[in-house]
């Protein structure tokens, strides 16, 4: 049986179709569902193994990015989401989706109460929206424990994905939270330069603390990241594809993230 992915959308969601496409390419069935349908109970998240919150500007990012949908999840969906997570299922939040997971208290959720807000994603240091390709890798072992994120299993070395955001600067609440993220291997991806070393702007495109680009929770199944893996699932999306004539059959860097999620979900299905 194919794993089922629910891709949540609302006013201002705009990466829903390509995110669903990436999951289908990785072997899942997908459904785009409006948040109203969930809140009204017309759709039930327990029917799905993966919940994806795609990129966009939900509700215009008015007040703060992701805040309004985050509150809808906190106030209208909390019990159902908690159950979904406790059932061993997966959640991914990409860009605006990452902002939503963090602002809803679902990431990093060190407290375990699915509620306490322990970090934020705020205005880029450059004070503007920027679209650029970045290099990413898992944090070096001496910096942080080996990541337990199931979504990035098998990803070795430096990968390339595009970022496109104005509010992607990751800030943990305090040093305790940061240490905890490192110690528990919750930092999934960090911004690096071409050679894999930590570097400043523009390699770190937003000024994130310790170059953090994506984190997971203690289960490793809830994952959020600012870069867009769905925009790099085939080589013709890579900005340098006309330079390096790779075999077009090779899947591009972002594909592995979806494949990992889908493969993990298959185990829950069976």
């Amino acid at each position, binding site marked *: 049986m194919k794993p089922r992915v629910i891709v949540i959308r609302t006013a201002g969601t705009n*990466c829903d179709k390509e995110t669903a496409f990436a999951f289908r390419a990785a072997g899942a069935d997908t459904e785009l569902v409006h948040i109203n349908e969930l809140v009204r109970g017309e759709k039930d998240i327990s029917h799905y193994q993966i919940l994806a919150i795609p990129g966009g*500007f939900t509700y215009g990012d008015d007040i703060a990015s992701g*805040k309004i949908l985050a509150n809808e999840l906190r*106030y209208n969906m909390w019990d159902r989401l908690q159950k979904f997570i406790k059932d061993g299922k997966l959640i991914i939040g990409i860009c605006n989706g990452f902002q939503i997971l963090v602002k809803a208290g679902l990431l990093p959720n060190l407290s375990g109460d699915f509620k306490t807000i322990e970090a934020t994603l705020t205005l880029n240091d450059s004070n503007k*929206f920027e679209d650029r390709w970045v290099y990413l890798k898992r944090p070096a072992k001496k910096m942080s424990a080996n990541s337990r994120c199931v979504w990035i299993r098998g990803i070795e070395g430096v990968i390339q994905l595009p970022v496109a955001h104005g509010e992607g600067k990751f800030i943990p609440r305090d040093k305790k939270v940061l240490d905890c993220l490192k110690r528990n291997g919750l930092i999934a991806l960090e911004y690096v330069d071409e050679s894999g070393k930590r570097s400043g702007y523009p390699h770190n495109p937003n000024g994130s603390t310790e170059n953090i680009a994506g984190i997971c929770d203690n289960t490793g199944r809830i994952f959020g990241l600012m870069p867009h893996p769905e925009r790099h699932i085939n080589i013709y*999306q890579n*900005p340098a594809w006309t330079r390096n004539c790779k075999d077009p059959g090779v899947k591009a860097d972002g594909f592995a993230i979806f494949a990992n999620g889908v493969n993990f979900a298959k185990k829950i299905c069976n």
Partner: protein
Amino acid sequence: MLWRIEVGEKNGFYDAIGQGVKKDIIDLGFKDKIKSVHAVQVYILEGDISENDVVNICENLLIDPITQKYDHKSNVFDEKKYKVVEVTYNPGVMDPVEESAKKAIYDLGIKKVRRVKTARKYLIEGKLSYRDIHSIAEKILYNKVIQHTVKPGSQVLQNVPPYKFSLRQVKMLGTTDVKLKKISKDGQLFLNLEEMRSIKNYFKKLGRNPTDCELETIAQTWSEHCKHKTFRGLIEFEGKIIKNLLKSTIMKVTKELNKPWCISVFKDNAGIIRFDEKNNICFKVETHNHPSALEPYGGAGTGIGGVIRDPMGTGLGAKPIINTDVFCFGLPEQPYNKLPKNALHPKRIMKGVVAGVRDYGNRMGIPTSNGAVCFDENFVGNPLVFCGNVGIMPKNKSFKKVNSGDFIVVVGGRTGRDGIHGATFSSGELTHETHEELGSAVQIGNPIQEKKMADTLLQARDKNLYSALTDCGAGGLSSAVGEMAEELGAEVHLEKVPLKYKGLRYDEIWISEAQERMVLSVDPKKTDDLIELFERENVEATVIGKFLDSGKLKLFYEGNIVCNIDMKFLHNGDPEVTRKAVWKKLKFPEPKIGFSKDLTADLTGLMANLNIASKEWIIRQYDHEVQGGSVLKPLQGVNGGGPGDACITRPIMNSKKGVVLGCGINTDYGKIDPYWMAASVIDEALRQIVSVGADISKAAILDNFCWGNTNKPDRLGSLVMASQACYDIAKIYGVPFISGKDSLNNEYSVGKKTISIPPTLLISCIAVMDDITRAVSMDAKKCGNGIYLVGLTQDELGGSQYYKMKGYVGNNTPKVDAKYGKILMKTLTGAINKKLVRSCHDCSEGGMAVALAEMAFAGGLGMSIHLGSYQPTKKQMLLKNHIMLFSESNTRFVVEVEDENNFEHAMTGVPIWKVGYIRNDKAFKIFDHEERLIVDTTIEALKTAWQSPFKNL
């Protein structure tokens, strides 16, 4: 009860907005005086809520608990050491945050908040006088067209008085011509005397005076903006009468070429061409110049928002997939004391316009992938803002039909007082008084409203819930309903239109250009389903009237008839006016430039020329990757280090078919010769798509004419010349026009002094590419590869960037030989399709040398170029070095080739010339025909120069 809440950054957290403002203040020349700036977000809540509710709203919604703090009783910061400026929107201007904030507060379980308003407060620290602060506030912090400053703490919500109906008539019968002119001027109708007389005669026959609403409807329908009177009217030129300039030039090309893949041209809101067996694509480019001059952010945002609704309103609705934008600005370094009265500074216009397009386009989730930016001092009071959008639709959704008896349904945003008189205002000249008079013409957009509407519309389309639609653009409901009902008639009940706030008069409801609205024609049987579908996505859909086969436009307000006119008169009653056109070529001093041993400084200088320099600062603020279909991006090469010629997008992810977009624009040639300007920009647009591998036989083009006041014969003469070039050149190239738009009256007057923009034609090109895997980018790929120049170089430096840099205009603009050009382009496309070309870049501003430099640094590889290998044809003299390097002759490309024999064979019959090769280091050297080293530099130095002008904005 009114609550005022202030939100600011906690100590130790970076205040990005405050820092941005500080940088702008430094730019204004206050470097030594400014110390720090803090931004404070202010929310004003009105409703029956307790302090506990307020605390709840603050802590769980309004602040970021990690980085921000708040105060709901007093100032969030101690303001002792600061000077304070607080800015808020004018009454009647939409506050985009209000709707989302109300929803979010409701989600918290607090249901009694009636209104939310926002303001921003700036705390400025430094040795600044109140005069300095006043000047900073006016120049950077607010725009009086939409905002005002308030005394901190004094702000209250203003209540708009309710409206009580009374019919207003305009006394026209029996009035003099002088009075008619006054009615037109006072009512901001922009109708000339002959038009006013026709209206008077019409109502004389009816035996009554018109209502204000009738007069407004006619003025808006007959406006230059909607009617294109100049292009479609009579023009007397060189002793002949041109009956309809548009039909006899632009549209004639399309008619004569008769391409089977042109599905719907010059009819609908956008031109439609075939994409594949199942889908069509459509493309429209609009301008939003006057609103952007007054309020750059709102003007440009609603410009892109408006043009997105064009494909959405084409056929039965297309899904928007790509945005384009092209801007023309005054010089960013213009001294403040030399600005024309009341004009905004070009730098502020540029930043505002870019931010407006960015925030609207990005929020809509549409990649902005192609564009251009030009600078010229004559755009100072009147910038040009072109916005384009491409949409895709199933081919059986390409046509619409309005049926008698269908309901008129308005969907999307509510109607407010924003954007009154936009259509008529954009048809007049700008003056230094326009800012005060026509502030209401400027609109603020709400992209999320439009996004919701677009998402729902496509679902409704696929469920066949409506049979026709169009967007509310210039002229609002008046224009949308008027156009849809042209062949039938309509009856509208204006009190049914949902309003943002009370107090609108019936005529304001009818002509308001409030954004994010569309009008549908719906079978009464399907209306309930349609309304329910929209409700599910939180979008309003409201029946406001009926289409009827009556030939009349009838409007009611609370049962009172406020408009009753014949559709025929409305659409065809305007008098035919003959306009005079003359054309005389201007003569500019011809520069004498002698032999120069070293052209390195000239090339480096050109790289930093505003029209050539990197626009990365703009491009990166746009999301050009969203929807995942980007194949060739606007920035190409190593780390996106070079400027691409055209962009390629794959709208269907598992298909190899792509959409290629390019554009041609030049604001310098037109000053000398509008004919060759138009010819050159068509050539440029085609060169761009050929460079990436597209075929001109699958390309279509769009025209956007931006001219000065064409009531002046010389301006109209140059428009005629440019239109004729469009016919001549496009016809030979075999490329049809599928859509277009003109914006005339682009002049800025202060008293008797008028600044007219240079005649500017934007040609946007769209082509379908069968196999995107054959695409070629412009960056140099491999050391040792040969570099070829394809095409002939002539002494054509008139209007070039090289002359401009040297302080000249010159006379010999580049010409186009389209017969030869067509063969050349088709041959090159053949070579690219055979994969014989590794990279290709078109030669435009700055000529061959700039194209070579861009190709080299984009690939991170040096080049050696030897002009001595050039074999001039018999007719040609050996050209001087600076001409060889910087002449902007059309139909030329620089091409990187690995397999030289096969390439040369494939290019048989076309002038090609191997000029050099790619080096294994970073040196960039050019040797002249006597092997003297005339350019000796590195790709790093060239790239640094290219990036310098817009690096630290």
